[in-house]
């Protein structure tokens, strides 16, 4: 069906354009911006007056919990949550059960996701079999099956020999490694940032250098192997500095941060709020401010949801025993907008952190609003407030410190491949 999106404020972060224009869609692609293509006859006109028309969001880390954790969430619920949040492409980490370490599993996941026909799902393959950190996976075959990168998810890989060899092997074929740096030994038993709040509440801490020591090891190996490494969900000021220096040095590295982490700090744990039990932990306000600034200046390439739906029972536990994670797909846009407004950034730059920039890391055709691009779009009202509540979240996970809070940015319509998949 041909769609005409009329009267919207069209923002394309890639080109930086931000203007009132109409958008024309045919056969799943954008065929006109501003002027209608010759002979265009709309099957549907969407009135986008008062709305921003932006590329669909690209999320570099969203757990869909399938296969293996269907009691926490399913593809169906989480992909519905994705499009309700304006997310049209997402990468899912391999920490399923079994982990995504075999081509057959990846194919099955992609097939199930395609049959739902909601957001595009890009699996990240396991770097090692069973994520056990010992034996490499069949990266070539996994790539053929659709993996966009390889990762250990949140599972440690203490054996640096294996990490070194994995980088060499990945570099041979030009595959990217997505790694969340954390020294397993330093983080052992830790559940919160090793700082004043953990000290006050008597929570075992994870020091900042658990992140940076692991990062420095990884950077040394990148220097030697030339492997492309994307650092996931950095949490510390020093980690950001390391990334900045590595980029200046010319190393093939990028980095992202989770949407919750650019807003919250250890202080938000309050009286043991288990919604603030996340990985990596919310760190000091100084770290948080460094993350915010680094995302604005481009040191950090992307903002991700780090979506981790957790069932309620697993959160109704003492802080240290509660399962870590926060639901994020439906908060990514509001939290990005909140950050952009607070940093006084132009809308196109704010949206770049959740569209064009992550799309480049993903290597997917996504995140741009231009003629010839797939018609993956998100139409939202930037001024309407959304109250985050258990009743309104589409995700099966209602776990976020923002429950009961109002955030800016209400998604009105999401299109994937020229098809309206969500209207709210």
């Amino acid at each position: 069906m041909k769609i005409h999106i009329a009267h919207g404020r069209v923002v394309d972060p890639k080109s930086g354009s931000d203007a009132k224009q109409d958008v024309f869609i045919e056969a799943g692609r954008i065929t006109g911006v501003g002027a209608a293509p010759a002979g265009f006859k709309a099957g549907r006109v969407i009135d986008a007056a008062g709305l921003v028309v932006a590329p669909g969001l690209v999320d570099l880390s969203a757990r869909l919990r399938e296969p293996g954790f269907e009691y926490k969430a399913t593809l169906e619920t989480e992909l519905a949550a994705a499009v309700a949040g304006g997310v049209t492409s997402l990468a899912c980490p391999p920490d399923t059960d079994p982990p995504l370490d075999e081509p057959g599993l990846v194919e099955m996941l992609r097939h199930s996701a395609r049959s739902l026909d909601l957001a595009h799902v890009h699996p990240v393959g396991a770097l090692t079999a069973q994520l056990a950190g010992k034996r490499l996976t069949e990266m070539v075959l996994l790539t053929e099956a659709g993996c966009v990168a390889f990762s250990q998810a949140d599972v440690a890989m203490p054996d640096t020999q294996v990490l070194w060899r994995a980088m060499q092997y990945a570099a041979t074929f030009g595959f990217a490694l997505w790694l969340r740096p954390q020294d397993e030994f330093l983080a052992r038993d830790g559940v919160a940032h090793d700082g004043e709040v953990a000290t006050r509440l008597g929570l075992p801490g994870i020091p900042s250098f658990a992140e940076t020591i692991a990062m420095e090891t990884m950077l040394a190996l990148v220097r030697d192997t030339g492997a492309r490494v994307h650092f996931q969900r950095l949490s510390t000021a020093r980690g950001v500095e390391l990334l900045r220096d590595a980029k200046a040095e010319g190393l093939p590295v990028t980095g992202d941060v989770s949407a919750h982490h650019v807003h919250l700090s250890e202080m938000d744990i309050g009286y043991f709020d288990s919604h603030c039990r996340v990985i990596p932990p919310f760190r000091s306000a100084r770290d948080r401010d460094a993350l915010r600034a680094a995302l604005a200046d481009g040191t950090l390439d992307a903002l991700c949801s780090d979506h981790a739906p957790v069932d309620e029972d697993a959160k109704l536990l003492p802080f240290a025993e509660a399962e870590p994670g926060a639901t994020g797909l439906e908060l990514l846009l509001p939290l990005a907008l909140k950050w952009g407004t607070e940093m006084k950034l132009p809308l196109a730059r704010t949206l770049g952190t959740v569209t064009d920039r992550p799309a480049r890391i993903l290597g997917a055709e996504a995140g741009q609003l231009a003629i010839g691009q797939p018609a993956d779009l998100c139409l939202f009202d930037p001024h309407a407030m959304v109250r985050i509540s258990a009743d309104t979240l589409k995700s099966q996970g209602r776990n976020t410190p923002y429950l009961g809070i109002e955030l800016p940015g209400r998604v009105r319509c999401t299109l994937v491949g020229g098809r309206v998949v969500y209207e709210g």
Partner: protein
Amino acid sequence: MRNPQLNAHGELQHLLTIEGLPREVIVHILDTAGSFVGITERDVKKVPILRGKSVFNLFFENSTRTRTTFEIAAKRLSADVINLNINTSSAAKGESLLDTIDNLSAMHADMFVVRHASSGAPHLIARHVEAHPHLHVVNAGDGRHAHPTQGLLDLYTLRHYKQDFTRLSVAVVGDVLHSRVARSLIHGLTTMGTPDVRVIGPKTLLPEGVEKLGVRVFNDMNEGLRGCDAIVMLRLQNERMKGPLLPSAQEFFKSYGLTAEKLALAKPDAIVMHPGPMNRGVEIDSAVADGPRSVILPQVTFGIAVRMAVMAILAGQ
């Protein structure tokens, strides 16, 4: 954020931590405990204040000693006391913490005394029973977080022997990192206006940023004890005596054990406290533990009165 231990009228609904307790509430507890000390010295050591009330001792972590003091305190207030060692019952069957609480609430419990290995567990329970204003939660020690009745009995002891908190130097010595007793006492002392609170220990046993709690940090015990009015020795758990934090109990005793020579550095009338049970020859020398400056046994007596006071005040809200 509302203090979860106070009700809408600012009265004590639960005792979860000393942190954030108004000074008047602490004074009320200590004053009331003073009246109970008299009662525990009578032939009939009971008052009928909690008659007909059910106090559940929920010990998710074993501690015969603490459980016994709460049991005695509740019985002296004429309450019915039910002891549950949960680690040996429901938890093993997979029942969740809050399921257990729901079950016991349905049995018309009036008070839960909770000991749990995980910091914040009593807060979780208190939040869960919010709909039952007649239910009170007393934290009997959670993880490394807090042990408020121990902190209060330490305050009672200090006030008993030293009267004025605003002129005191108090040194807390040993494994502060893992100690809920230390955290509760430090919050209590700072709330009561104690100008000089010191923590003494090796860097491996002092938590990150401990000075932000309002204490001075010493690694050298001799320096830290100089001129102080009270010394609170912390218990060193067996499993921590050898490992990545400490090489051996002997070496710990050499640097941080309280001996008569080290005690001589404190004021001549300084008192020595210990939450018990003591490791003689590890954190404290027997000659000091049994010596004239030790108030370790009176602490135990005051502990009963303080727990009676806490329960009586909670039951009165």
